[in-house]
């Protein structure tokens, strides 16, 4: 095992693997564990995971590229995820997205040069009652308008 991964991570991976009848089955939880430590799954991480789970790296990459929440590039400090599904769009998500793009100076899927903000759109966040809404890392913000976005971004340092 490569020395760049912590002892704690190795221990957690071993625990997860022990939970399943086949090593391969632990792929998703292991991806999450590694991503939590490294921030993203680069080719090095793919090979590392393939090595532990006795898989070919291509098998790991299949899963990595399938799931949007497994990241291939590290994100900024704050990951701004704006809902672009039906309720939010009806209540102006389009304007919100455009405003965020303008304000952060980046397109969807990009990260600001100072590595502070990453912007992406997501399908339904399950918070239609406060549409339009967005998530910053694990926090929800609803009933958005431009002023509220200014305040949210200002509060993030």
């Amino acid at each position, binding site marked *: 095992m490569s020395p760049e991964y912590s002892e704690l991570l190795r221990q957690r991976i071993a625990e997860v693997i022990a939970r399943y009848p086949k090593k391969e089955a632990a792929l998703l939880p292991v991806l999450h564990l590694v991503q939590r430590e490294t921030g993203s799954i680069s*080719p090095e991480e793919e090979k590392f995971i393939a090595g532990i789970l006795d898989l*070919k*790296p*291509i*098998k790991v*990459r*299949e899963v990595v*590229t*399938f799931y949007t929440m497994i990241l291939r590039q590290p994100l900024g400090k704050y990951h701004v995820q704006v809902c672009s599904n039906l309720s939010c769009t009806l209540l102006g998500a389009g304007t919100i997205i455009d405003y965020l793009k303008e304000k952060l100076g980046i397109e969807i899927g990009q990260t600001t040069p100072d590595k502070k903000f990453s912007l992406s759109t997501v399908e339904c966040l399950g918070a239609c009652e406060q549409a339009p809404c967005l998530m910053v890392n694990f926090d929800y913000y609803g009933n958005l308008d431009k002023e509220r976005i200014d305040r949210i971004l200002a509060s993030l340092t």
Partner: protein
Amino acid sequence: MVKIFIDDKELEVSNGLTILRAAEGAGIPIPHFCYHPAFAPEGSCRMCLVEISGLPKLELACSTVVREGMKILTASEKVIEARKAVLEFLLAEHPLDCPICDKAGECKLQDYFEEYGFFASRFKEAKEKREKKVQISKNLILDRERCILCTRCLRFLSEITKTQDVGVLNRGIHSEIAVYESNFIDNHYAGNLAELCPVGAITDTDFRFKTRAWFLVKKESICPMCSRGCNIFIDSHPGFARTPLAQRVYRIRARENQDINSFWICDFGRYHYSYIDQGRQERIVLKKEAKDTELSWEKALIILAEKVKSLVYLKKKSRIGVILNTWLTNEELYLADKVFKKGLGLENIYVVDPPSEKGDDFLLTEERTPNRRGLKEVGLPDLTPDLGKLALQTDLLLIFGTFLVGRFSVTELKSAFDKIGTKFLFAAHKSALDSLVDVVIPTPLIAEKGGSLTNVNGKVQSFSPALDNSLGLPEWKLLIDLAKELKINHKPFWQLSSPQAILEEMGRGIPFFK
């Protein structure tokens, strides 16, 4: 056994069979892309949908198992509609570059489109642009626009070669077959993928843009590159009336035989076909002091027979040597045994084959010659000649094949051959031996003659000529002529007129060939 009805045809089929297999067994074709008999059903292409009475929706024929009394419709209006819809979706992203596609003419997508529609697409949106030339192995090119994601290639590499070299990356419309970074598919069965691909997504650089499938004449044959005896198709181009081609064979493909090679052949057998068309002997030549004279077989036969007769008459038959090889068929080895060993009573009969090479644990064997087992069963000794000894004890040497060149250096051969009075060479190819012998007699290759071969496991397989041969007489014919000329064993041999007749005769004498 269960009783089922397919299109009102009553069938008794075994339990556990899928509808598709049951239908195929009854001669009812069900269109499919992703299903392949060698793999577990995948059910991803949706082309094999059939109607089952009592079920509200169409079911997959490739993965639905038959049940007692099942009534299946394979050509109802609903089924045809479904097939059209599946095709329409597949074609929504397919580039339709059939005019430049090597698969055209043997493409399932093309065939089914012709069968089910010629409909115009209702999709007005532009098609996705994808990479059209991704190298995925030494010989294979992947075209992601043509790919219909049946995953046959992926399943071949995970179920048959177990190397798992490719995967499906991304999701939805962005899904694509890919290798890991620059890790090419690295096993010598990869050539099967081009054949396995139901569309033109995986093409072979060996065949790419060389010719069109419909020009090729497809004939059955046996692969002679090792002792496995894989069943193959030899696809050859007859040439055009005004432009003859330098090359006849354009492709070797696997032919199904569940006892030997299943559906596959190795890349060694697949790509080494250029020997069929290159460097061939064309004429019977008498070499005399730097001047070559062309001979007819009748004349060459008389010269040969006279030499043999004179040595036998002088009680010098121990000074006749014969070098055989196991590219010869069972019939030819049998005749060689009858003529040289039993008929003339020769003792110096040797065998020179291509050297053994590393095999693998699937099809490719170490013996790079097709009929060593046949030699053993015929009862000929497997002796390698000692060149020095051979040179001293031989006045007349009959050499079959050019494999001496691979075993000894030309200098060694020359110094030995200089001491031998007369040398006859029966060979398909030009080689360094040509200038060392007195008479060269061209012979056909296995692809050009009929006969049978015994594979490494003792399975005798007959084959017919896959290519026409205007270059030489097959060895079995030469040996019969020689036997006639020498008046050996006249009864059984002289009437034998085909490899089949010889094999029957062999069966009477050797129980193995019965």
